[in-house]
């Protein structure tokens, strides 16, 4: 065979392309360049070199790719680069928040901290703990859930299964309005009632305000979950001669229970971090008060606020505030994990 045959015609389907490692190389290059420029110009903020590196990365990708691969591929690569930069920008605050909470929170977070109150400890001294705040949070949030979850789920069932005409529209409208109520307003509403009856602050009043905040969230999420149940299942059940209420109870709700539970858990996570109504209605307490129906109580978000506000810069109080923040984040995260577990466990099974 002569060498002339091995001479290939250029393929019309295969153009020039950058090697696979090129995006990483461009990224490393633009970070190095960003660092170099800021060092040369004497800029000391890390935000400046990072922004510069980001801009250089996008520009560099476009220029290099346009020269080698052509404009269409360059646009494609720029879009990918923009997505990556946006992703990093979004992740930075999250990671830094978790990092600073964990690194500062673990200092005083131990068994003693979780099982003792601030009873005999002044805010500026070291020692003490958050047992009273955990107890208060659990009771207030628990009672709020006991009130809001059934009402919310039943409202959603009404809206999806029965609601027709003006009443359903009015309920939907007011649920929308309730979603927008600021937490402080819900607190003031309950406070005005308390003042009418000349009552002292107590935990359950906070629960009522939290229930107001929680209800619309539960209604909304449960409504969406119930709407996801195929109509065919309802019809199949009705066609068997099963009454509507039993159809809802035995077919519709079991099918959507995973989603409803997740919605409730997310609503709980949302109200667990509310400070304003607790500040107004429960007041806070450095002693252990396990009775939510009488006397001021503590709660985790309020504890964090008070440790920051009342300690006048004492290091011990700062440490306690961070440790309580870490506990609160862990509490919410555990709730979310539990919700996911329940959703997976209760999800309609498709296995063979």
């Amino acid at each position, binding site marked *: 065979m002569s060498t002339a045959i091995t001479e290939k015609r250029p393929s019309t389907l295969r153009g020039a392309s950058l090697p696979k490692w090129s995006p990483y190389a461009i990224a490393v290059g633009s970070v190095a360049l960003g660092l170099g420029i800021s060092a040369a110009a004497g800029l000391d903020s890390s935000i400046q070199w990072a922004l510069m590196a980001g801009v250089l990365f996008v520009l560099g990708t476009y220029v290099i790719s346009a020269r080698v691969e052509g404009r269409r591929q360059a646009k494609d690569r720029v879009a990918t680069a923009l997505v990556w930069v946006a992703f990093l920008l979004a992740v930075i605050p999250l990671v830094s928040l978790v990092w600073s909470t964990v690194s500062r929170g673990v200092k005083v977070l131990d068994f003693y901290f979780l099982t003792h109150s601030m009873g005999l400890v002044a805010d500026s001294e070291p020692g003490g703990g958050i047992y009273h705040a955990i107890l208060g949070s659990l009771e207030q949030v628990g009672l709020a859930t006991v009130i809001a979850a059934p009402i919310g789920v039943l409202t959603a069932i009404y809206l999806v299964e029965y609601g027709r005409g003006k009443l359903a529209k009015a309920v939907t409208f007011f649920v929308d309005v309730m979603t927008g109520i600021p937490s402080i307003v819900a607190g003031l509403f309950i406070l005005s009632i308390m003042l009418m009856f000349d009552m002292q602050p107590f935990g359950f009043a906070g629960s009522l305000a939290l229930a107001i905040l929680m209800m619309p969230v539960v209604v909304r999420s449960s409504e969406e979950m119930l709407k996801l149940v195929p109509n065919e299942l309802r*019809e199949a*059940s009705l066609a*068997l*001669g099963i009454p509507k209420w039993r159809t809802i109870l035995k077919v519709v709700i079991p099918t959507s229970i995973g989603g409803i539970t997740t919605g409730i858990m997310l609503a709980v996570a949302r109200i667990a971090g509310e400070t304003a109504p607790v500040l107004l209605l429960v007041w806070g307490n450095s002693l252990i008060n396990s009775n939510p129906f009488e006397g001021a109580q503590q709660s985790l978000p309020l504890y964090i606020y008070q440790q920051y506000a009342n300690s006048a810069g004492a290091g011990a109080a700062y440490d306690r505030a961070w440790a309580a923040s870490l506990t609160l984040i862990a509490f919410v995260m555990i709730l979310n994990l539990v919700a996911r577990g329940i959703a997976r466990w209760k999800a*309609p099974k498709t*296995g063979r």
Partner: protein
Amino acid sequence: MAKRIDVSGLTAYYGSHKAIEDISMTVEPRSVTAFIGPSGCGKSTFLRTLNRMHEVTSGGRVEGKVLLDDEDLYGQGIDPVSVRREVGMVFQRPNPFPTMSIFDNVAAGLRLNGSYKKSELSDVVEKSLKGANLWNEVKDRLNKPGSGLSGGQQQRLCIARAIAVEPKVLLMDEPCSALDPISTLAIEDLIGELKERFTIVIVTHNMQQAARVSDRTAFFNLAAVGQPGKLIEIDETERIFSNPSVQATEDYISGRFG
């Protein structure tokens, strides 16, 4: 056990839209009646008026009479829930309850009606699954979810679920349209067996199927889109497919439609 259906002057609406107009027919007990006709002519709507499922759709209402052995389904004081216990239904797409096992799916009708004895339940389930020709395929995995079965098995599971409550009449809304030819054959054989015990009404787009399974065939048509569907004729299946008395029926069956 099977009951006769007598429909006279039946008109059904969706809100203000008239879907079917002035339909009268008789369905004999222990027979198979097939409904054929173009899409949108109201076959399924008419079928759903026979067990009061039409009114489940929002805006659905009905005028006229449906007599089930001399009792008007739309008469005063008639409970639609009891009507549906007498007149069962199988839908176009198999729809087993996803949260329930195969056993629970078949037992659902009895259990949720609250009218059963615990000791009888497993007998009823076995009998119904055997009746639906599904027993041999699922007897070793009754506790597995019903949604794990194949499409044809799921549809037979739905039939077992429907016959477990011992209805007098069984309505089938295109039960084979989502199934392959072999599952279709299984269900057609099953229809032949079930007609010994039930009155069966089946909607189908497959004319060979109507010719194979039914004793009588009703042809529905609509004058134009937006017009209500009407019953053109109902007769012995053999006559409809060989020598129909209305020209429109012959055109439809021979493919010269429109």
